[in-house]
């Protein structure tokens, strides 16, 4: 299970920068970034090299953060790679709440971060572990990639 840091920001200029600067000043590396936006606000989802320290400095700066468990799946970076992953979850009737790409530095494979509903998380893990083409990553392995 991967610990993703989710952050609430208002949807106007400067707000994202504020978050990024705090992390930069504290030398916390961002391994992946995803932004979901509504009309007035957005949610920034980050995988950080140092999760605990990141949360601490963000909270100290009055930024609302929460930790969300997500899955990281390594798949081949070829046509059909992602389809295999989504297909497996669909067969198991597991809904994907959201998904985005993680940018690995040391592999040619693709890594997808997936958020499913909490109650089906274990089922998702079990499902994906059975698929040969998919390699589910734990936190340490992901951050080494």
């Amino acid at each position, binding site marked *: 299970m991967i610990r993703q840091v989710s952050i609430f920001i208002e949807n106007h200029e400067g707000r994202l920068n504020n978050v990024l600067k705090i992390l930069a000043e504290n030398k916390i590396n961002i391994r992946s970034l995803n932004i979901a936006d509504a009309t007035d606000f957005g949610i920034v989802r980050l995988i950080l090299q140092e999760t605990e320290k990141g949360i601490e400095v963000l909270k100290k700066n009055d930024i*609302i953060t929460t930790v969300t468990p997500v899955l990281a799946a390594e798949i081949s970076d070829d046509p059909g790679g992602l389809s295999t992953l989504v297909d497996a979850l669909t067969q198991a009737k597991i809904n994907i709440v959201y998904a985005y790409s993680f940018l690995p530095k040391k592999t040619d494979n693709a890594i997808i971060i997936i958020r499913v509903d909490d109650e089906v998380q274990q089922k998702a893990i079990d499902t994906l572990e059975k698929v040969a083409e998919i390699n589910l990553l734990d936190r340490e392995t992901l951050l080494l990639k």
Partner: protein
Amino acid sequence: MYWNKSYECMPREKLQELQLERLKRMVNRIYHDVPFYRNKFQEKGLLPEDVKTLEDLQNLPFTTKVDLRDNYPYGLFTVPLEQIVRIHASSGTTGKPTVVGYTRNDISMWSELMARCLVAAGAGPHSVIQNAYGYGLFTGGLGVHYGAERLGASIIPISGGNTAKQIMIMQDFGSTVLTCTPSYAIYLAEVLAESGIDPASLKIRAGIFGAEPWSENIRKDIEKKLKIKAYDIYGLSEIMGPGVAIECECQDGLHVWEDHFIPEIIDPVTLKVLPYGEQGELVITTITKEGIPILRYRTRDITTIKPEPCACGRTHLRISRLQGRSDDMLIIRGVNVFPTQIESVLLEIGEVEPHYQLVVRRDGSLDTLEIKVELSEALFSDRISNLENLEKRIRDRIQSIIGVNAKVSLVEPKSLPRSEGKSQRVVDLREI
């Protein structure tokens, strides 16, 4: 034109004699029938007999909206419920409304005063009055309705909203007088213009507008766009409802019906009575009401009393157009909104003391309310739909409790301005 010339044009000396006689009787009744007032008199060491002149009113205790709330619902009524024929209510400072009861005589008095108002604004038995004030617990609709019936005019009880129908009825029924909030009048004018209907083709000649603050500029705008004369009316449910004061054809201040109400202007800080002409908070004493007589009610409305005789011939004092409020109550589309009401909704949902800000804007002709709420960690979710649901829950709760449609925006913690630790709760960007 007058409805009741002998009272409306009564020489001031005679009017004051009448006021004193009625005030004494009223003070006597509340002292004996309402424990709340008796206690207040005793705290000040006063007896009903201490009221010997009209000036003595200045020594008597005030009544506030909080007093009405503390005695919710019927605590300040002076008669048993069997003598009450109608109950109205307006929104209070918390979830509980302010309740007022009317005896048969009260309804009759209200109808009489409202009839005077309609005549002052040029209406008569031949008028067709389209009453677009809301009917219900709010006093606006029924107040105008009973006055129009007393006058013998034809009243159309269409109530608020449904603009297309309002326009159809205006065209087909030949309405000559329109009664609604000023902001709705402007909205109607805009819809008429969009529909390509020339107001001159309608029979509407006058409008009686109140229940929210408006300005001389808005009057000019309404008069030009609807091709009518626009009159300001004042009232509040705690005192009676619409018809406490009205503009006459001179359109220069609103005559307060002094044979039933005594107006005073006080400094809202020192609570001292101010001389005529000075701006302060309007305080009203009802001297004839039976169901719930109110002594020196602090209206929180800021105005001045104009003592000069009016060219119309009425001798009753005028108050100037309302200048604002001495508390943080907002009037949005005719609905009273207190920041504390919003606060209790937020408290209920978030279970922590919320930081919020109310932003009122005038969007075209309609007032809009935005509620900015600082999000707390406990309510945060990393799913957009959960946060949108949270906004919706707050919006729905406010709609059902206060009756106002608000936009709810979640904002970051500590992003709202604070002064002395408390947020600046209200930003009113309306230019009226």
